[in-house]
């Protein structure tokens, strides 16, 4: 009896200690971090062949993603503008605010299924998931920090020296350790369990309603050539005919290529989780899906307009628009946005 008591005291102490260290981090196991290629999906562009999946590496990336230490004045983290409940877009923010309340001119996109992306940012200027975070970290109106300074801040942090040690065997902070761990955290954000996915896979007896099915048919006929399944985008650059805003003066893809034929083109976004990732378009000009669909029947800018879009607009009846919106709601993946392993490890 006495012996049993001792065991109880010791185990609870051990648990208490474990909890004290980092409650949420302890629960992630390697089984929860599998590389995924859902049936019928193309091969991903980024594999983890040079970034071995390991809970300690994932945890390091997760800590970094949610830590404002990456910004100049320690005020803004990646997670500030990429919120899990909004499928990692910035809810109700046309533009996000960076350090010193500076405002940018592009809308923060959602983040999921990133290993299928061949480029990043609305203009596709960043060519690899591992170097993507350097963009916002060093952008003077976002996080405004230099990567060299990030390196020294992390090296000077006892917490991170410990996290580097656990993940990579020594306490040293390096560019590759920081960016590969972040790529691992972000790259494992798979979203493939929406109502639509369950319906497609004949799982759990999920059925689409009559209006959702009508919307799906209309979507396939009128939207599916650019927002191609299963990722709901081919990630190519297009002008969809939205009005040019001279105040923002954003040339889009041409900013990267310097080619006049790329002016006003932006990367076609995935429509997965689209009900959560508003405001919409590269500059967040539309707040509702209805406004987005209304745009496609009323084209404003013909310069470099994508050849699949008629200058007179895509013919859509108001009933079709309503049905398509019903269908788009089925692309929300609640399992993804509630997955605890993608939440802020410090519960902020």
């Amino acid at each position, binding site marked *: 009896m006495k012996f049993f008591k001792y065991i109880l005291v010791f185990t609870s102490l051990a648990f208490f200690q474990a909890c004290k260290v980092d409650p949420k981090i302890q629960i992630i196991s390697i089984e929860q971090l599998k590389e995924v290629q859902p049936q019928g999906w193309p091969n991903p562009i980024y594999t983890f062949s040079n970034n071995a999946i390991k809970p300690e590496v994932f945890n390091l990336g997760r800590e970094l993603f949610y830590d404002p230490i990456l910004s100049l004045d320690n005020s803004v983290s990646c997670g500030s503008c990429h919120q899990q409940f909004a499928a990692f877009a910035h809810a109700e923010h046309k533009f996000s605010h960076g350090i010193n309340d500076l405002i940018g001119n592009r809308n923060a996109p959602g983040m999921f299924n990133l290993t299928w992306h061949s480029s990043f940012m609305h203009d596709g200027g960043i060519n690899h998931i591992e170097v993507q975070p350097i963009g916002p970290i060093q952008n003077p109106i976002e996080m405004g920090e230099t990567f060299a300074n990030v390196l020294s801040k992390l090296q000077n942090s006892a917490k991170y020296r410990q996290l580097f040690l656990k993940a990579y065997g020594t306490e040293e902070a390096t560019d590759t350790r920081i960016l590969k761990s972040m*790529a691992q955290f972000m790259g494992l954000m798979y979203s493939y369990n929406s109502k639509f996915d369950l319906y497609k896979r004949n799982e759990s007896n999920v059925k689409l309603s009559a209006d959702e099915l009508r919307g799906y048919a209309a979507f396939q006929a009128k939207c599916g050539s650019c927002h191609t399944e299963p990722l709901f985008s081919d990630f190519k650059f297009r002008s969809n005919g939205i009005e040019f805003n001279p105040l923002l003066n954003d040339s889009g893809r041409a900013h990267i290529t310097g080619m006049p034929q790329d002016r006003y083109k932006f990367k076609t976004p995935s429509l997965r989780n689209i009900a959560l990732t508003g405001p919409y378009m590269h500059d967040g000009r539309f707040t509702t899906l209805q406004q987005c669909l209304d745009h496609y029947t009323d084209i404003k800018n013909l310069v470099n307009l994508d050849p699949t879009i008629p200058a007179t607009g895509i013919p859509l009846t108001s009933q079709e628009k309503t049905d398509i919106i019903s269908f788009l709601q089925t692309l929300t993946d609640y399992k993804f946005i509630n997955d605890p392993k993608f939440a802020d490890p410090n519960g902020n």
Partner: protein
Amino acid sequence: MKIKSIAIIVLLAFSFCKKDKIEEPEPVVPNVGNLSVNYRPTIDGNTMLFGTQYKNAHGDTFTVNLFKYYITNVFLVKDDGSKFSEGKFHLVDHSLGGGFSMSGIPAGTYKSMIYTLGVDSSRNVSGVQDGDLAPSKAMFWDWNTGYIFLKLEGTSPQADNGSKDIAFHIGGFTKPYSTIRTMTINFAQDLVIAKDKNPQLKLASNVNELFKNPFVVDFFTYHTVTSPGLQSNLVANNYTDMISYEAIVP
């Protein structure tokens, strides 16, 4: 008990010693040597000092406060034509001495060096790298992925901007504006690499060659060239004769 354990320890120690002796191979010392490569920043022959005023070929006054570039894919060519490939990436930073050392070079007499100013395209598209290619070296475009191959910053009263700053961040790895350039430097003396020597190859990097031959840069028009493209490519055409041979110290 005590004696027994001591005996075991002694035996163990003995067996380890024995093992070491048996397994230790005859050390094979390869017949290779080292080389230091040093770059002297110059203005047409005179050593360039940061913050000092100079004139470019267009007649514009300027000062330099930062000057660095990537030297990669280095080959040393022997007198028999065979080549030693080093395969490393060196950031030559004139704020930090400006040079690098090479090791593991097969002994022999060398006549020339082939080098690339820039970073090959595969390293521009394959994610994060460490060492001299680490993004924290600030030779990396974060908004339009790729390495800045050469960075020169300074001031010029002719610059048509408020700050009177000049900034040349030259790079780009895609056609038609790839600024990767591969050049050869012939040695006027023999470079002898041997096991116990540490010779020095002394080269000059003439800043003024960035601003002429064939494209004359005037700082009124071209004060800020900081992205890949046409203008970067014009400056890259100039930097093909920026580096020249000075001496070999055996």
